[in-house]
């Protein structure tokens, strides 16, 4: 039950209910579709990339609380960051959510994203948390779509 409370903590439920940057930014020049074929989650991530910096970022779509909250938290975390910073943040986030369950994990440097660390206790749900990130990276790399498969 403890793991469940950690997974569905207040911050995540709040971002699920009131997702931030839940729109296409007016200056968006990058976009990709994300799809989790296993559960049918679909989202679109938009970015305004200017001289290697993410000026603006947003998303739309439907999905579970974890995928929505993760997308929402991601948009807040990456706004204003350089591509290299975004990549570092993704690597850190990915390492945490895919690390082994029931073992301590270093969440330093993740900022608010650390609320998603509880996902590592739910291997079936890791893809929900990473979908937005894969989609953002696809958008930044000029790919049209990302899939968690």
């Amino acid at each position, binding site marked *: 039950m403890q793991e469940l409370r950690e997974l569905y903590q207040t911050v995540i439920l709040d971002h699920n209910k009131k997702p931030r940057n839940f729109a296409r930014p007016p200056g968006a020049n990058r976009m990709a579709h994300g799809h989790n074929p296993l559960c049918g989650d679909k989202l679109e991530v938009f970015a305004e990339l200017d001289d290697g910096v993410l000026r603006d970022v947003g998303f739309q779509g439907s999905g579970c609380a974890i995928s*929505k909250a993760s997308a929402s938290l991601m948009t807040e975390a990456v706004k204003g960051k350089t591509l290299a910073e975004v990549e570092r943040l993704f690597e850190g986030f990915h390492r945490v959510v895919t690390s082994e369950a029931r073992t301590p994990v270093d969440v330093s440097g993740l900022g608010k994203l650390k609320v998603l660390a509880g996902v590592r206790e*739910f291997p079936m749900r890791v893809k929900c948390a990473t979908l937005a990130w894969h989609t953002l990276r696809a958008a930044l790399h000029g790919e049209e779509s990302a899939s968690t498969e």
Partner: protein
Amino acid sequence: MSAGARAAALRPAFDAASVRTEFPILAERVHGKRLVFLDSAASAQKPRRVLDAMNAFYEHDYANVHRGVYLLSERATAAFESVRERVRAFLGAPEAREVVFVRGTTEAINLVAQSFGRTRVGAGDEVLVTQMEHHSNIVPWQMLCEEKRARLRVVPVDDRGDLRLEALEKLLGPRTRILAVTHVSNTLGTVNPLREIVRMAHARGVPVLVDGAQAAPHLRIDVQELGCDFYAFSGHKLFGPTGAGVLWGRAEHLEAMPPWQGGGDMILSVSFEKTLYREIPYRFEAGTPDIAAVVGLGAALDWLGEIDHEAAAAHERDLLLRATEGLAAIPGLRLVGTPRERAGVVSFVLADAHPHDVGTILDHEGIAVRTGHHCTQPLMERFGVPATIRASFALYNDREDVNALVAGIARVREVFA
């Protein structure tokens, strides 16, 4: 009243508690809780009888079938072939040679599409499926239509989740070459009025394939009464092991169908100039089959045969009724599919919680449900939902399982309040 009738009258309607003890896995604990297994529509659990039969077969009788002249091969062949007769009886089919062993329903449908379909369907012809089909009763036909430049047409479903028969009537046209329809919907639980559907199709000379994957564990099946041309089901949903399923087809169809896979066991003689195929059903069973799985399926049929079907069906109806009523009373919960007649499953969505989150929370209560699109994406589209939560019932479920489900949903609502 005779002694026998009195005993029957005194016997409890259905002893779910005693049935449960025959399924070892139901004693498992999940996250420290009693296992509430509500995903039998995906795959059913196995009674000890089936596990023991497979073990005993491997320990005492195992060898390849139809090959050796030695005793073990003879015993294995007899065990394997005796299941064909038991399947015939289970389906009410006229002849055991009409029973083809396959891996499961999916393979059965692919067999019919690739063999029967390819010889019957040409450019401009039509194949008819319904909006409530499982992907496995859509995609094989789509592949066939693509190859033959034929058209896949779809019988729509109404808001309750029943097939629109008046639309079916209109869709059955001069170019319709086959109708593929499910007996019971794996997502909505709808029991289709098959006899009527078959009658309508046959009136236009259209043969009917029935996907019986969800019906076989719940309904009494009589293919002669249904009148259909093909009937497919999977052993693993019928308390048997994975790896063995059945295609039943009318002998006159099977006789006229070319083989779909070539190999050993399906031939009379092979030369580089010409190969002669064996008679039905062997012509459709190339290669070494999953022998032990077929033996396990036989044990499952034996086990089912000893259960009072009417009493078990009444028990399942009671669970379904309690579940649908209990769930429907929950604020913010919407049932997806309220068909006239239901078997096996109930699907629903919650206003504030996504099915995946519901599935995770229920899992922590020990409750296994299926969440997602259930391999029926066109149907999800029809009902405007990306996914549902599906609880499915088997005869080993009990009222405690239903209560746990309803209480579990209340717990979900607490989390997402």
